């Protein structure tokens, strides 16, 4: 799950590319159905272009049949949808019927959170001069919820749909929280500490609700750098293409170690009982 522009399609495409290559722990059992979206995104990446925005009305599931290192078969369901749908759920307090079954069926959740675009409120204690004047509060941008509050609210809505309010945290699905576009953040710390420094409320909430063994925080840069929107994108595109589009992405493990196996969050989830 991820809000709009969180990098769901890029990660899905890179994952599928790596799985197809067979060079990592997870391997493909057979060709999945409805692969078109990921395949199209892969083709764009191979041209040095960022995958296209997923249309708001899209809602589909890509079933990825996989083997893990031990030869055990898994089926990963990769939902394909416009991230605006999650924002709509948040605003309307209504979960569309097409979301119900996937939410009920999912045994593990993977959430992509782009901290580089997180909305954080101005602190009245630290920067009182920057707090918007009351007149500015009519601006809808000012009234938007902080990102950490959005996710806490959203998670509670999704729990409620799944099994009522979380009275039994042990029943919550294992959760891999992936901080996407990690290259934007230019930090050296572990993903969990990075999250805590930007959105402190969110890790507090997660740690107090999930079982410690059922939650982990990763950092991810599926492309390794920007392919559009910023001046340095043109220069990076050359590097991206020359080194091979699947070799520039990297993952920051929970302990802060950086490596190229983007499948780690998925493997971690598959190992959860």
């Amino acid at each position, binding site marked *: 799950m991820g*809000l*709009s*522009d969180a990098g769901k399609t890029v990660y899905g495409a890179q994952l599928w590319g790596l799985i197809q290559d067979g060079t990592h722990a997870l391997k493909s059992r057979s060709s999945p159905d409805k692969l*078109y*979206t990921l395949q*199209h995104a892969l083709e*764009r990446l191979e041209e040095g*272009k*960022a*995958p*296209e*925005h*997923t*249309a*708001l*009305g*899209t*809602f*589909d599931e890509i079933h990825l049949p996989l083997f893990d290192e031990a030869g055990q078969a898994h089926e990963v369901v990769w939902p394909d949808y*416009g*991230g*605006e749908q999650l*924002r*709509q759920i948040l605003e*309307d307090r209504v979960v569309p019927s097409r979301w119900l079954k996937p939410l009920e069926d999912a045994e593990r959740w993977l959430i992509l959170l782009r901290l580089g*675009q997180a909305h954080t409120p101005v602190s009245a204690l630290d920067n009182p001069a920057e707090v918007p004047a009351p007149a500015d509060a009519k601006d*809808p941008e000012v009234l*938007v919820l902080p990102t950490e509050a959005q996710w806490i609210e959203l998670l509670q809505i999704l729990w409620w749909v799944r099994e009522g309010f979380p009275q039994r945290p042990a029943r919550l699905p294992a959760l891999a929280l992936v901080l996407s576009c990690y290259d934007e953040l230019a930090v050296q710390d572990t993903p969990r500490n990075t999250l805590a420094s930007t959105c402190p409320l969110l890790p507090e909430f997660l740690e107090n609700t999930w079982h410690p063994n059922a939650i982990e925080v990763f950092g991810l840069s599926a492309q390794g750098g920007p392919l*559009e*929107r910023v001046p340095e994108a043109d220069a990076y595109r050359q590097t991206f293409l020359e080194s091979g589009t699947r070799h520039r992405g990297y993952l920051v493990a929970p302990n802060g170690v950086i490596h190229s196996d983007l499948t780690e969050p998925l493997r971690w989830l598959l190992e959860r009982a």
Partner: protein
Amino acid sequence: MTLTLHAAVYGWKIGGHQTLSSSLPLEQLPKVLNPFTDRPGGTQGIAWQPYFAGCSYSGGYALTYTHPDVHAARSGTVQTRVLLIAETQWDQVGTLEALFALLESERAFAALSAGCHLVFPLPLKPSPSPFGGQVVTQWRGNTVPVLVSGTEHLRSIMSGLWQRLPKLMRSHLGFQTLFHPDDLNASTAAVVFVPSGQVPLWSRLEPKVPSILAEPTNALERYTSGASLPEVHAILHSLERWDGSGWRVLGRLADAVFQLEQGADLRAGSDVLHLLHTSLSLDAKYMHTLRHQAVKLVCTQIAQAPVSALWPLASLALEAQEQIKVGMALEARLTQILFSQSAPA
């Protein structure tokens, strides 16, 4: 004519597709518009083109025009221009043609940057569509959307339907341009246009995609396309206003009248009378008095007038804004036809 419309533009900014500008406060924009403010779901990798859509919302009807946003920072994003026609203004909008043109014009939408609503003179004369009637014929016979192959007649068909359909039916007149058959599942549109280049993708639904190239063949098609006799049109139009929710009845009535015009047998006339009595419900308290007055008046005149003069009599009653009497006049006229048909030669 001066018409005041509200407008909005949706497009990409950080956080996803959302409202970029609006002449209405954001909280007043109808949420049912949201699904229409991005590309259709199944267009990744498919060559798509700017497209129109329309849907009703509580208190009005919205027309949208979506086109690629080549200036947006993110790939694959679009802008959607939206015009909102408040229900109170529907009567002033005789045709949608001018609004389609307005939606396509970037300059016209520049007014949005000032955050004001649009006030403009419009040539709103109706322009009958030769094909709209066929859409209506299929629509009233189906519970699934009517699929129209090709978008070249979209404007004239939707304008024609807007012009001819009863006010209440306009709120069911949602339409979309869809590029991939999978998108049909999520669509609530009554009429779906499939661009010609995408029709092969719809091959499994091909038998349901009508080839809308023929001239109107029955009364309802003739009426909806503007091809019916002026007198027939006047009467049917009055009935629309009389009971707008009874449009299916209207269709059957139109068919029956057409059959009568063609000299059909007594059964068709009986059907019409039955419909008038049962489906186009008259308010009971007016029924008794007006029925006697109208029937007495019309029958008196009918008794003295040639058959060819009966339609203008009904139109005369329409002009007097006494719509129930129009119904009575029609009933009387049909009664007279029945008598003439049942009488010995």
